[in-house]
């Protein structure tokens, strides 16, 4: 009976672990995307403050299209 219970408990723990790992993978994807977004935003901020956007409008668009 104890053996039975032990196997049940270890299954539950494994299930909890796998749920955690899945969720962590989601987080990792989101985190990667987030860093990407930040670097895009920074590029734009840089372009704006340097006034590059107004001088090279076409270039600015191209950058946009690439991202």
């Amino acid at each position: 009976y104890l053996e039975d219970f032990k196997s049940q408990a270890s299954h539950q723990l494994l299930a909890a672990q796998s749920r955690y790992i899945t969720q962590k993978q989601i987080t990792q994807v989101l985190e990667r995307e987030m860093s990407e977004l930040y670097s895009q935003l920074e590029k734009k901020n840089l372009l704006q403050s340097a006034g590059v956007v107004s001088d090279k409008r076409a270039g600015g668009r191209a950058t946009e299209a690439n991202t």
Partner: protein
Amino acid sequence: MAEDPQRNFRSIYYEKVGFRGVEEKKSLEILLKDDPLDVEKLCTFSQRFPLPSLYRIHVWKVLLGILPPHAESHLLVMKYRDEQYHDVLHALQVMRYIHEDSPKVEIFLRMYQLETEKLPRQTDITHLEPEDEDFFAIAKAMYEMVKNEVDSYWLIKCFVNQFSHKYGDSLPHLPKSLEYYLSLEDSRLLNHLKSCGAMSKLPYGLWFRKCFAGCLPDSSLQRVWDKLISGSCKILVFVAMEILLSYKIMLLGMSKAESITQFLENMPQENTDAIVSKAVDLWHKHCGTPMHTI
């Protein structure tokens, strides 16, 4: 500081950490050898005696449920705790809530806010709530005592959680309770404080919401938190009262509520160990020596 010789005599007993201290340490060591640990007994022990500093953090972790009672699970559970800590830390870095130079207490606050679903939007994190200041004070004191950041964070989180869940409702009643016990111990001092309107202006936030963090030095604070963590928030009332009693002569000489508040907020850092010892005596005197968890 003016000392009342009679009250001083009582606490000399505690200040000498001689034979008694050794006996206590031994009996705690026996309790800590239990597997699984008897959390109830550990609670009773910390209610009655100060924890030896060697075992304090370990016992706090058990009492706050950070470590489970079974020794066999400690490694696994601490691995989970460690991962959880680093998961939150990393996410906050990516979202730029914190950076490498952020002060530890700020990191701990953001982590705690994330885990309690109170994290503000990144665009308005400059705004701090009054309860955040309480959190900072507790976090700073805990981190200084514990040093290890994973342990610190878990202890802060569970301490703050336990405090608000368990004692949140009694918190507003503590000033009244202080007034009641002070009327029993020293009605003259109480009348003086009342007559200059100081009773409503005492530093209750520092005493009861920050739990004396930033008021007492760590070595004294730990002994108050031993009682708090093991289940009594009444101890806060007795420490506050003992502070008033210890500075009685000085307080009787002040007639402005503002000066009294200011003095108490920046209380001298000497003799705080004696103040805590006497506060524990008073607490046992009025509430009984706990045989079981309260």
